[in-house]
């Protein structure tokens, strides 16, 4: 079995996170806290999957504004991210930050807001083309009535709810949150969409027969995310992976974990320049992945970050390896296969002064940028 769902302690201090949309320092604190939590975790898979859900069930601090609510959402992804997908979808639907970000808290029977109902289908569970406009409208009605109280309390207000029965995703009699989610979970497009999304995100797997098998197993497990992730990792073990370009945050976290560096200043500034900051995805679709991360300015920012990480790397086997000329040793201490560095990368390593500079080069070699 994979690790238990209970994640290691996160590093946010709630006393520094007031329920105050005007408190700007807490936004920076929330972002830094997530980076530190990911770097320091003793359950890397839990945090890797939580990060994946952040890019999938997107909310963003610039609209939510209350950093505390974004932290609550991040904690949801850490605690429930490897649980049951149905439960996760339900919890995300009623998550305070999500209620704000996609406007469900303002959605009433008299004036249903379709934002969440649309993204629930288009981005979160089945993908565009698998549902109709009528489904979006029906879903919006079924999901009315949930709203947000002060300090993040979520409550159902019956008089705000559309007390009607709708036809939703081919199911009659849908009338509230749970019947709506039942209909979503029963919809045939869902398992393939989710299996494909996770397999692509974690291991770059896109081969159709494999994804179809993973989707079928996902249904058999009654939508157990842990089993799905486990099956994906096993597929990886048997070589069914493809290169995944590491996004700036996962790359930064990995580099810090492997070197032991804990850089402090300029991190957020440089990650922003590299194109990715926790809690600030560009839009509800999350970050564009893959080769989009190889934009020129993004790579310059990564090189500068690599220098920052290398300069903050404490004495130890990584720095010692970078002091020497043995590229195989350097690869090994960085967690790469011993013969991983290409001739070109080895030449670049040799061109950099021994020590921190050479380590910086190693951290932006293609071998380290691609998982």
């Amino acid at each position, binding site marked *: 079995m994979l690790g238990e769902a209970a994640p290691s302690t996160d590093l946010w201090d709630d006393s520094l996170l007031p329920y105050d949309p005007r408190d700007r320092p807490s936004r920076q604190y929330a972002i830094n806290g997530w980076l530190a939590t990911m770097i320091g975790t003793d359950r890397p898979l839990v945090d890797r999957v939580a990060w994946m859900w952040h890019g999938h069930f997107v909310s963003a601090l610039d609209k939510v504004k209350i950093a505390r609510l974004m932290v609550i959402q991040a904690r949801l992804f850490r605690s429930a991210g490897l649980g049951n997908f149905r439960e996760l979808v339900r919890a995300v639907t009623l998550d305070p930050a999500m209620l704000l970000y996609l406007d469900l808290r303002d959605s009433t029977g008299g004036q249903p807001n379709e934002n969440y109902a649309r993204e629930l289908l288009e981005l979160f569970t089945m993908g565009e083309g698998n549902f109709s406009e009528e489904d979006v409208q029906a879903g919006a009605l079924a999901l009315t009535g949930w709203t947000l109280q002060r300090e993040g309390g979520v409550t159902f207000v019956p008089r705000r709810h559309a007390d009607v029965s709708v036809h939703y995703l081919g199911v009659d009699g849908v009338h509230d949150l749970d019947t709506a989610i039942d209909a979503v979970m029963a919809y045939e497009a869902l398992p393939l969409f989710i299996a494909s999304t996770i397999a692509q995100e974690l291991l770059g797997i896109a081969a159709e027969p494999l994804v179809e098998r993973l989707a079928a197993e996902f249904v058999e497990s009654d939508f157990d995310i842990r089993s799905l992730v486990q099956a994906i*990792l096993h597929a990886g073990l048997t070589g069914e992976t*493809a290169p995944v370009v590491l996004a700036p945050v996962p790359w930064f976290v990995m580099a810090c974990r492997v070197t032991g560096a804990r850089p402090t200043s300029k991190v957020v500034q440089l990650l922003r*320049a590299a194109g990715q900051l926790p809690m600030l995805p560009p839009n509800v679709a999350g970050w*564009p992945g893959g080769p989009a991360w*190889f934009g020129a300015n993004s790579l310059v920012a990564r090189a500068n970050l690599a220098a920052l990480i290398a300069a903050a790397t404490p004495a130890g086997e990584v720095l010692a390896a970078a002091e020497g000329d043995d590229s195989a040793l350097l690869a090994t201490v960085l967690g790469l296969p011993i013969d991983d560095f290409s001739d070109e990368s080895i030449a670049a390593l040799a061109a950099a002064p021994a020590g921190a500079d050479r380590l910086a080069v190693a951290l932006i070699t293609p071998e380290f940028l691609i998982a």
Partner: protein
Amino acid sequence: MTNPLNRRQFIQLGGGAVVVAGLGACDRDGVGRNAAGTLPTASAPNVTAPVITTATTTAAPSTTIATTGGTSFDGRRLVVVQLNGGNDLLNSLPPTDSRYRDLRPTIAIPEADIVTLSGLGDAGLHPSLSGLARFWDVGQLALVRGIGFEVPNRSHFVSMDRWWRADQLSEAGWLGRVLDGLPAEPSPLFATALGGGAPLLNGRGVQPTVITSPGSFRWVGFDPRWLSAMGDDGADLAGMAVTRSNGRFRPSPTSPRSPVVRPLQRICPPVRAEQPFLKGCRSQHSYWQQTRARRWSWSALEASTHTPTS
């Protein structure tokens, strides 16, 4: 609006993206003024065919928009300014149709404030757009109303995809296709996006250079000459700017390679874009048999075998 936009102002357009491309092959008078007829009919919502409206006057073109450096193509540039987000057509170009005021009793633009455009009878400009009127007067402004597609599904993302790809969802960005068709890129900055990414400029083989700010090309604590051994001159902006993201997956045969991308090609030979990734191209490294317990993604394996109870 009376001063020419300069590059800094472009860059400060944080919410949008500015695309600059030299288009030497274009007919001198072809860009933006090839629809000569005035079509002053108001567009109904969800009209599929756009209504193109231009002034008929012609005058000598004057370049008032700064361009980024690079190759000169007879001094001409195509500049596309994309402002992300929704736009209220009816208040940008308030119609003279009386139904406009009937349906917008509180938010209609007062009639006295509307900027009239000579020769255009059915609409005018929002007062904030008055600076555009002088371009209209010399025949350098076209207004396209009622853009959409059949059976709109109201998905922001699908709609933007269609916009960027000129309605051909299986194709690359509409300007990216121009880049793909060039025998060689004249310079690394030939196609440049300022601000955010610009999917309309993404080709299959060629990617634009995206510049979010000039400062993002500043090296701090890292000497790009260290990368020159990887095959390209990474020592200057141009050298880094040729880091074309798509090069790894399906490079144009002639596009320059970056220090990072070139070695990637050796690892992963170019594949067709419709093949998402080249399956197993790194399996030769037997990654999974190696120790990478401390690597983040792979450390999942460690968690799978050594589960602390809690």
